[in-house]
């Protein structure tokens, strides 16, 4: 390590190594964020030519008083909870399976990961076909009543269709992280537990899971964020329908800003969403970090 003496030299070093990333960060993250924040205090409707006037917190009050906003938020929370739990349970199960030494496990790893390589929009269209044609066909052929009408035409089932597709898409990726966690566990710990005569279940609960808390921190954070921000699958699978019953929060914000032409209110809603997601995500990471320290 070397240390620079004069402030000017420090500045020069910073300019050489730090200025470019800083500029990029400012131009693609910080400035748009601040401009967005600014817009949420204006009456702008998205038109380039329109006069922009400041209206204070009015957008925030109308955003917070909008029942449809909280309605979309409620549905999103429901979606997030199920996607988060199911994705992680499934991913963890798959990870255990493909590290247990079964035949062709590398093939299974690749296979389970594949859905993650398909773009959300295309995936939505594929599943739209599956739900509205394949399932209905199967339901009619074998007389299975809950498959006979398309899931996408009933509000509750349509939301579950979204959840299923979300889980299917993300489980493979989370599985990879869990595999890394499982493989990274110190072999001597596992051997010691075997010598002490612990059952497979005891090993899992007492050794593997506690040693994998860092992996859980990452996967829970990723699934939480992905589920809250889901838009592509929502758009291509249900378009918020039937009758707006599956309009999740990102879509609600987008529609408010661009379809209803209320850029100000849309921005305000986006910031409320940002605050909520940031709070939940930070809380989750802090709690799990503490667990990590306990485990070590």
């Amino acid at each position: 390590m070397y240390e620079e003496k004069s402030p000017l030299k420090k500045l020069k070093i910073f300019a050489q190594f730090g200025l470019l990333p800083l500029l990029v960060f400012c131009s693609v993250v910080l400035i748009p964020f601040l401009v967005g924040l600014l817009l949420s205090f204006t009456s702008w409707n998205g038109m380039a030519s329109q006069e922009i006037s400041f209206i204070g917190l009015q957008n925030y009050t109308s955003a917070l008083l909008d029942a449809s906003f909280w309605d979309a938020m409620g549905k999103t929370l429901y979606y997030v909870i199920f996607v988060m739990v199911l994705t992680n349970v499934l991913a963890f199960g798959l990870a255990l399976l493909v590290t247990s030494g079964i035949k062709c496990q590398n093939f299974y790893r690749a296979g389970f990961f594949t859905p993650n390589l398909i773009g959300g929009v295309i995936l939505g269209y594929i599943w739209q076909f599956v739900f509205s044609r394949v399932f209905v066909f199967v339901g009619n052929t074998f007389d299975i009543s809950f498959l006979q009408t398309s899931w996408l035409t009933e509000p509750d089932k349509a939301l579950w269709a979204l959840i299923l597709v979300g889980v299917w898409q993300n489980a493979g990726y989370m599985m990879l992280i869990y595999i890394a966690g499982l493989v990274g566990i110190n072999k001597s710990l596992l051997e010691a537990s075997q010598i002490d005569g612990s059952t497979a279940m005891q090993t899992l609960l007492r050794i593997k899971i506690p040693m994998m808390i860092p992996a859980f921190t990452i996967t829970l954070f990723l699934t939480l964020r992905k589920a809250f921000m889901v838009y592509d699958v929502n758009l291509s699978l249900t378009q918020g329908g039937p009758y707006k019953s599956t309009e999740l929060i990102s879509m609600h914000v987008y529609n408010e800003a661009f379809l209803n032409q209320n850029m100000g209110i849309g921005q305000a809603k986006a910031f409320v969403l940002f605050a909520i997601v940031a709070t939940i995500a930070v809380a989750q990471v802090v709690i799990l970090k503490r667990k990590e320290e306990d485990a070590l």
Partner: protein
Amino acid sequence: MKKALSLLIVAVLLLSLVGCSSSSSITSSAVTSTSNSTEEKVDITFLVTKPEIVTQFEEVFSRFTQEYPHINISVIPLSGQTIYEKLTSLYASGNAPTITMVGGPEFTAFKDNFLDVSETDFASKVYDWALEKTTVDGKVLAIPTTAEGIGIMYNKTVIEAATGKEFDPSSIKSRQDFAAILEEISQSDYAPVQITNKDWLLGSHLTSVLYGASSSNYEERQKVLAQSATGEYDLTTSDAFNGWMDTFDLLMKYNMNSSSPLANVYEDDQLLMGSDEVAFWPIGNYVYPNIAEVNPNVDVGLMPYPMTDTSGDFGNEEIVLTYSMFAIDAKQSTEAQQQAAIDFFNWLITSENGQDAYINTLVFIPVFEGFNVQPSNPVAQQIVGYMSQGKTIERMSDYFPAGITTEFGATMQQYLAGKLTRDEVAKQFSDAWVSFSNK
């Protein structure tokens, strides 16, 4: 050396940032002469907002370029966005299309950006009644693209096979007549009605029938909208609303998909109509090219959506007439580009080849005088007939607040699925009016 390099990179980056913000317009010299050969190459862009006929547009552009080799037109597709979203982002990024196709609401929002075409040849051909909507302060800012009708599509082959009698759409003068023929068809093996459950159809096209038939007088209709916006217009006691809902109930009663009315897919609806399996379908003539593709011999037509039980009432013999518009950008295009766009429309509307392309390639229905070529497809001829007899209803959703049509669509989907009563529909409509008008 390293320092110099890093400084250079920083400088380039800063410059590129500055470059983005400055306006990119007015780079090539303005050319105003109209002779073709001496002009330099001009590239213009065209936002095509009808995704189903992008290839037809491209064909028309290549025909145009054969006669005007110095002008190259490239298509900007809508790519799944709404017109409003697309135009907002194109204008905000300084890449406004030279020529835009807009609907009524987008025209109102973007009209300050459009070129005054009052003095051009092609604008003088537009029917006077069609110019009112696009004239602002005496300036014509856009011209109609094509006339489109919304009503109930009928399949003559099916109806005649089901009833054994010849079918004349003008024999249906009221809801009673319509109910009688539906009942007759339901006794046969054919399906009487299909209802498409798309929100643009239910919430925008069909609600245009409702608000358009509320009065034959322009001022009265505007009053209805103004009262709706404040919540004073009571739908439950409105004749237009009840008549409209009565007919909708009738359609629902004979709907072939009534067991799960939200499951049928729009593409399948087109197939069924094209393959002569269903008699009536509330829709617009815009779907005709797709049906003709399924079955070139299809014998379909468009009739009004009946509003009352009494023949002769307003709405029973009128179809909703709607048209989107062509406009030329005035803010971000060079003069040469604007001139090229004007050349294009003069060619399309006034030259023989252009008219041929307009009628036969784009399958458009002219809202222009002096066309030597007339549409050959039967539905288009019907619409020309409705226009010439003045039996048209104004497309009212052009005046609705932004975003409300998807709300109306959601309400009607719920009604279609049997989840709402008529009073609840009225209440949801009224609430939507108030909340969307006050945002």
